[in-house]
């Protein structure tokens, strides 16, 4: 006879695919190593300090908030991604204490105050960056040219290419692609960010809809307004924003059509801010703006249920 056994009961299904939120976050973090590596290559020790400060303070803040709220802290990798992303949007000359303030704000206010992972309305990393650029406007718009591993602290400061008045922008394409320009730490090397994005699309973590529509809209809209489309696409934080920030699951629409709308909307906003706004760069605010519209997009863009007929609608 079969011995008596206690069986576990649960609802179906009884098997799981095995891809966890944690493994998704870790994959994103792994692909972010590409732009992070580029920033370390270009900005040396300073980049390492900023990245580690941002990641550490994000994780510590998340831990502290979870304890305060009486919830269990799970190392799900989302704080890691937030910290890393935030670091990559910061200028390399930013003092470390400001980096810490940005990370704490990103996790404590933008993410946990809304209920934690899955409930935040705005992208935490971009929220943190927006907070920093409001509080420390001067530090946040001071960029240095790549210093590599030089230990000298007095880097040559420069404007972001977007704010420059360059006669021959085409000459800058190569520098923009490989990142040999002034700018935020991870936003400079476009080619590595594109590779990272392609990896994320090929392992089915993000879909192509949002980044392609976003970048395409920026190129088209800039072209219509008489700007150089290639330059507009490569300069600034667009690549990082399109592939890694806007595609954040929590703050972007669920359906593919929703993602298309998000991408087009963010693209138009970016160009409008860049050309008519007071700031040289509009990626951060345009994504935050579309984040706010995401619940609305999800409300109206829904798949048609199987077998839906007009006359059967209630």
């Amino acid at each position, binding site marked *: 006879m079969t011995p008596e056994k206690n069986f576990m009961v649960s609802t179906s299904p009884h098997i*799981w*695919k095995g891809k966890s939120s944690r493994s998704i976050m870790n994959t994103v973090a792994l692909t972010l190593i590409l732009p992070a590596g580029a920033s370390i290559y270009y900005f040396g020790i300073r980049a390492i300090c900023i990245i580690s400060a941002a990641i550490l303070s994000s994780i510590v803040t998340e831990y502290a908030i979870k304890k305060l709220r009486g919830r269990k802290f799970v190392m799900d990798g989302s704080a890691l991604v937030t910290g890393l992303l935030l670091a990559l949007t910061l200028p390399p000359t930013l003092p470390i204490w400001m980096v810490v303030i940005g990370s704490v704000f990103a996790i404590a206010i933008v993410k946990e105050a809304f209920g934690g992972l899955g409930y935040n309305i705005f992208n935490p990393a971009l929220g943190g960056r927006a907070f920093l650029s409001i509080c420390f406007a001067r530090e946040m718009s001071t960029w240095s040219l790549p210093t590599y591993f030089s230990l000298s602290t007095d880097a040559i400061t420069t404007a972001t290419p977007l704010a420059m008045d360059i006669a021959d922008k085409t000459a800058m394409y190569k520098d923009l692609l490989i990142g040999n320009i002034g700018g935020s730490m991870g936003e400079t090397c476009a080619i590595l960010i594109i590779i990272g994005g392609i990896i994320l699309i090929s392992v089915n973590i993000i879909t192509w809809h949002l980044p392609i529509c976003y970048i395409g809209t920026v190129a088209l809209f800039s072209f219509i307004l008489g700007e150089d489309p290639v330059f507009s696409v490569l300069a600034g934080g667009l690549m990082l924003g399109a592939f890694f920030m806007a595609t954040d699951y929590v703050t972007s629409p669920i359906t593919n059509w929703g993602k298309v709308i998000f991408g087009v909307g963010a693209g138009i906003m970016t160009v409008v801010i860049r050309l008519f706004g007071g700031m040289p760069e509009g990626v951060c605010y345009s994504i935050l703006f579309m984040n706010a519209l995401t619940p609305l997009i999800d409300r109206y863009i829904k*798949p048609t249920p199987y077998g839906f007929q007009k006359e059967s609608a209630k």
Partner: protein
Amino acid sequence: MQKVILKKKSATRGIKVPENKLTEHNPIEPLPLPQKVIIPMQQHIGAPCELIVKRGTKVKTGEIIGKAGGFVSAALHATISGEVSGTTKIINHATGHLTDAVIITSDGEDNWVQTEPAGDPENISSQDILNLVSKAGIVGMGGASFPTQVKLMPPEGKNIDTLILNGCECEPYITADHRLMLEQGGKILLGLKLVQKVLNPDSIFIAIEDNKSDAITHLANLICEMGMQDNFKIVPLKSKYPMGGEKTLLTTITGREVPIGGLPLDVGIVVHNVSTVKAIYDAVYEDKPLIERVVTVSGLVNEPKNLLVRFGTPISALIDYCGGMKENANKLILGGPMMGIAHFDLNFPILKGSNSILIEHAAPIIESNCIRCGRCVYACPMHLLPYMYVKYAKTHNYNACQDAYIADCIECGSCSFSCPANIPIVEYIKTAKSELNKKRTRK
């Protein structure tokens, strides 16, 4: 031969699940007759059976012990010969309700009840076929256990133009239908011919997933040998879950969509499972009521097997025959891993709808927050928004679930399977559905 096998088709949605068809090369073995069977009075959708035997009644194999309780109901038969030793109450694993059950103790002889043959099965009238199907207590054996004669009698004004034989078997592990197609293919085709006679459709498709290519070629050869290539066409389908779901299947083959709240016959289609059609063959050609079926025993048993089992046999008998469970087994599933129902009792009987007994090892699942990744939305074969049901069900907002077409959900489990946050989405959906049901009955 080429004319029999049509071009391969693929569903627009659907997910890849690990197939784990451990038993696909194991021939069907008859399980030795059990000492005792427990036959619940309700093994189908619809009205329960009316018990017509008493304690002490001597019954023969195939004798009716439960009369169909209405139009949507199916008769029950003694599955072994012996004596009715009592009645008991048993929990219906699907609904959770208590139902009456009859216990028959075997006399060890398996004496069959004598019946007069129904005449030449080749020239039988469709009314006779319907009578025999209803007498034999046949139900849909793919899982839902819907009485078959109801599906063979479309209401007035509904014209059935397409008949689909479902041999997809998209659930992982289960190989019962696969083996049946390989070993009893001829009987299945003759059974299908009987259904054709009753429904008189314009086209007949046999749908088989492409992971069963041996079954596809075997049936194609049989169709040619039997000279039925003008009527029967085989449609190979790309293996995807839930390909065998009635709605997914008929949409993939015909392009039609069943309207919300409707039935396949609303769009002129009837789908039958291969095991059901084989049972129709048995009822008409061999005058055998539905008393046994092929059950796949798989997962963490020492020797996974395909067994021919009489209904009412306790699950423990099957497991013992398969060499017992492995040490780490802690889950008993009736059906496949995607839609099967976990049970706790090894004495639970095999029913008409039990296509598989699966022994699994499961660790408790820890649910985390939804990260809105949208995988459930793109896995859903019914194009619904599973994550919204979870959101609504957590706040007990069941009416919102209803407005979001929760009734359309087929509970296939694709959403939960794909969820990276391990949210048991189907559990929330089932809760919401039953709460809505309660509300409806209260009114």
